[in-house]
Every structure is written in structure tokens, then in C-alpha cells.
């Protein structure tokens, strides 16, 4: 009897491991229109409304945790005020949430005003509803999809700057790959009229990006702004339009034995605290970029 149980347990374990490996390799090698991807999008579509409701319902809880985090240093308050603070806490949390939302909307408007190039695009404002718990997948899910005119490889921004690009879609949701994902690379230019390189992430550190392929003889100063280069040679082009701010140069290291210097860039957008983003849909043709 015991042996039978052990055999059954081992069989289940082996079957599940084999199934996981089959899923992993099939999904990895399959095209985006393959059956596994389609099934995955189906599950995401079914659960999207539930996730959205849960995200909205749990927002006060998140705000509360952030509120505690922010006010952790202010413990030495007057004893008499504590009762009042207790009473006002719920109101403050709600007001802070609303104020934060307003600030983000204002920034989004400013960004599109400051970048006339973005006028050629239709901007779809969306809310971030889900995100991956792992630093290895820097993806978020937003609450607008193909039914809002969003297409694959559309650039995504927030009020501070570049956020990422759309990598997958369902009618009601879109998957945004952040610029900190290890699969992402953006052509960036050091402003004003500086050299152009490739902005890559450093996995595990969302507050640091690396601007690579900058020749050692180029002079890069701290605090210079890096923005999307948005190049095109007629057949191939960047997925990102030019002029979207990416970040600020924090450090430039010129290695003696190396051809290129390593430029560290701190992204403008706080990618850990994304709530609202704008997707740049439509716009001019981008040759070579699959839509």
C-alpha cells in the first residue's frame, strides 16, 4: 500500500515537471500567434475584469502601506495630536490617493504639451492593473487593449518620461514591457546633440539603466538628459518616437581597455510606482516595426 502511494506520488511529480518543461520549451519557441499564446491571452482576458476590480478595491490598502512607509520617520508627534491623527488618517489616505492621481494626470498633460512630436499620436490614458512580482519580468498589465486602438510595439510613457512598449494584447488589456526588462533596449541620445547609444537595463536594479556603445572619446557630463533617439533608415526604425525623456546621466566610466564607455542613467519614471500611463497609438509609419 505504502509503495503504491510512493509510486503514485513520484509519478505525479515527474508528470508535472515534464509538463512544465514541455510548456516552457513550447512557449519559448512558439510564435506569438501559436496555440499556447492564444490560450494564455484567453485566460488573461477572462481574469482581466476580476484583476481590475481587485486592483481598485485594494488601492486604499496600498495607499495605507505607502502612507505608513512615508510617515515612518515622523513618529515623534505630539501626544495630544495622536487622537486627531487617528481620526484623520482615513481621510488623509483617501485625499493623498486622489492628489497623487491628479498630479499624475497633470504630468501626463505636460509631457504631451512639451513634446510637439507626440502631437502626431493618439494618446490613450490607461491604468496599471497588474504587475509581475519578479525582477526578471519587468512587465505591467494596463486596462486598455486592442479595442482602444492600441497595437503591439506602441510606446508607453508617463508624466516623467519613457516607461516601455506594448508587447502583447487582448481586447481589454495590454502587456507593457518596461524599459527595465532584460529583453528591452532603447536607442537613446544624450541631449543636447550628444552621441547616440543603446539604453539597456541592469537586471535587479530598477533605478539604473546603462547607455552602451558610446565611444570613449565622447565627453559625457553628469546630469545630462538622455532621450529616445527615434532613428529610422527607411527599412528599419526604432519602436520609440524621438524626444521622449528617458533619464539623467548619473555616472560615466571610461574603461582603459574598452572601446566604449559605460554610462549609468537614472530613469525619470518611477517604474515601481506606476499607476497611470499613456500609450502612443497611431502616429507616423515606422518601417520594420511589426504593429
Amino acid at each position, binding site marked *: 500500500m505504502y509503495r503504491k502511494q510512493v509510486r503514485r506520488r513520484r509519478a*505525479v511529480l515527474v508528470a508535472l515537471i515534464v509538463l512544465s518543461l514541455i*510548456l516552457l520549451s513550447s512557449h519559448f519557441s512558439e510564435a506569438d500567434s501559436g496555440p499556447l499564446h492564444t490560450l494564455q491571452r484567453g485566460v488573461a482576458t477572462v481574469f482581466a475584469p476580476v484583476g481590475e476590480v481587485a486592483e481598485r478595491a485594494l488601492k486604499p490598502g496600498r495607499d495605507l502601506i505607502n502612507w505608513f512607509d512615508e510617515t515612518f520617520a515622523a513618529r515623534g508627534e505630539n501626544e495630544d495630536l495622536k487622537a486627531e491623527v487617528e481620526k484623520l488618517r482615513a481621510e488623509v489616505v483617501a485625499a493623498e490617493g486622489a492628489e497623487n492621481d491628479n498630479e499624475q494626470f497633470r504630468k501626463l498633460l505636460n509631457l504631451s504639451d512639451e513634446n510637439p512630436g507626440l502631437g502626431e499620436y493618439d494618446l490613450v490614458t490607461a491604468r496599471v492593473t*497588474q504587475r509581475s*512580482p519578479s525582477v526578471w519580468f519587468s512587465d505591467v498589465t494596463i486596462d486598455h487593449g486592442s479595442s482602444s486602438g492600441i497595437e503591439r510595439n506602441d510606446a508607453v510613457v508617463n508624466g516623467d518620461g519613457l516607461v516601455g512598449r506594448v508587447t502583447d494584447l487582448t481586447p481589454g488589456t495590454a502587456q507593457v514591457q518596461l524599459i527595465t526588462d532584460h529583453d528591452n533596449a532603447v536607442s537613446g541620445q544624450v541631449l543636447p546633440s550628444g552621441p547616440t547609444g543603446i539604453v539597456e537595463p541592469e537586471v535587479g536594479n530598477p533605478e539604473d539603466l546603462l547607455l552602451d556603445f558610446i565611444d570613449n572619446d565622447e565627453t559625457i557630463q553628469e546630469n545630462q538628459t538622455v532621450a529616445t533617439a527615434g532613428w529610422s533608415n527607411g527599412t528599419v526604425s526604432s519602436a520609440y518616437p524621438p524626444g521622449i525623456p528617458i533619464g539623467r546621466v548619473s555616472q560615466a566610466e571610461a574603461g582603459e581597455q574598452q572601446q566604449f564607455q559605460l554610462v549609468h542613467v537614472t530613469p525619470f519614471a518611477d517604474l515601481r*510606482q506606476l499607476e497611470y500611463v499613456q500609450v502612443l497609438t497611431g502616429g507616423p509609419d515606422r518601417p520594420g516595426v511589426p504593429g
Partner: protein
Amino acid sequence: MIVTPRIALRIALVVILAVLLQVSFFSFVSILGATPYLVPVVVVALGLLGGGVVGAVCGFAAGLLIDSLLLQTLGVSSLVLLSIGYLAGRYREGFEIRGAAVPALLAGAFTMLAAAGFAAIELMLGVDAPVSLLVVREILVQGLLGGLLGFAVYPLVRRVLAPALIDYKPSPSRLLSAGRLRRRGRRTRAVEHAAPRRRARRTPVHGGLS
């Protein structure tokens, strides 16, 4: 654990709720620079309560759901979570769990293992960008947060699955109410059957031996 259809449904609900809470709440929260990882903690709790097979199946299902919801590479989370679910279950089958700290410590250790396993698989699949040493901090902090979550999650999951546990002892109030229901049921049945039985006994028997 005795897995009846009703218990299987409860387990499924626990897994779905954990995944939804993870992607809609915990993934947005940053504590000490890391994201709390609830799903492995729940899988470990299920493994510790249900054994290796339950842990592995729950881990596989939770991983599949999380990968599907986030449109990630299918199979990565499943492989990691089924492994820790199985290991947690095997621990339960080999050792006795005493005290509230043991499940929490195990949840922390297995969460750390899950985060490390996830990193290892991703590195094997190929990472084009440089990897920061902060990944190690993320793994350690996630383990620490997993341990803290374990203090709350294990008793909660245990409570939800209590009727399926072999060492389950219903609370006195529950026993009392069950006993009351049983007595009431017996009394109702007695009233229902009393009259016909009495009538049957009083039925005159004509002829033969009585």
C-alpha cells in the same frame, strides 16, 4: 489531508485568491526595496498541510495561472512553485511541525529558494542585459518577507482546510450545534415514524400464533 471535492474547491479558491492578491496588490508594494511574494508562501502552506502531491499540484496550478495572467513565459513559475510545494509536503511527511514559528521559517526559506530558482531558470534561458548584484538583495528580502507572511498565511490556510485535516478536532460549540442538530433530527424522525409503528403494533392479528 483527505481531499474531497468540496476541499478541492476550497484549495482552488485559495490558489486563485493568492494569485489575484499577488498581481493586483503585493506586486505594487515595495518593502525594503523588494516585492512581497505571497504565492510561494501559500503553496508552502498547502504543501505543509496536504503533503507532497497536494503541494506539487497546487504549485503547478498557481504558477500556470500567474504566468497566464501576466503573459509571461509559461512553465517557469510552474516549475519553481511545484518544486517548493513538493519539498514542503515532503518535509511535512518526514517531520512533525511544532509551534507557529516552524511553518513561518519554512515559508521564508522556501520563498527564498523559489526566488533563487526563478533567477536560475531565467539565467539559463538567457538574459541579454547585465545582472545587478541587487538581485541577491531581492532574493534575501523576499525570503524575509515570506517568513513574516508565513506567520499569518499558514494559520489562515489551515483554518480554511481544517475539516480535511486528519488531526481536525471540531470546536466545542461546533460539536454542540452538530449534536443538537442530530438530536433534533432523531426527534423529528421519531415523531414521523411513531404513529405508523404504533398503528402497526395495534393492528389486530387474526388467526395464527401471536
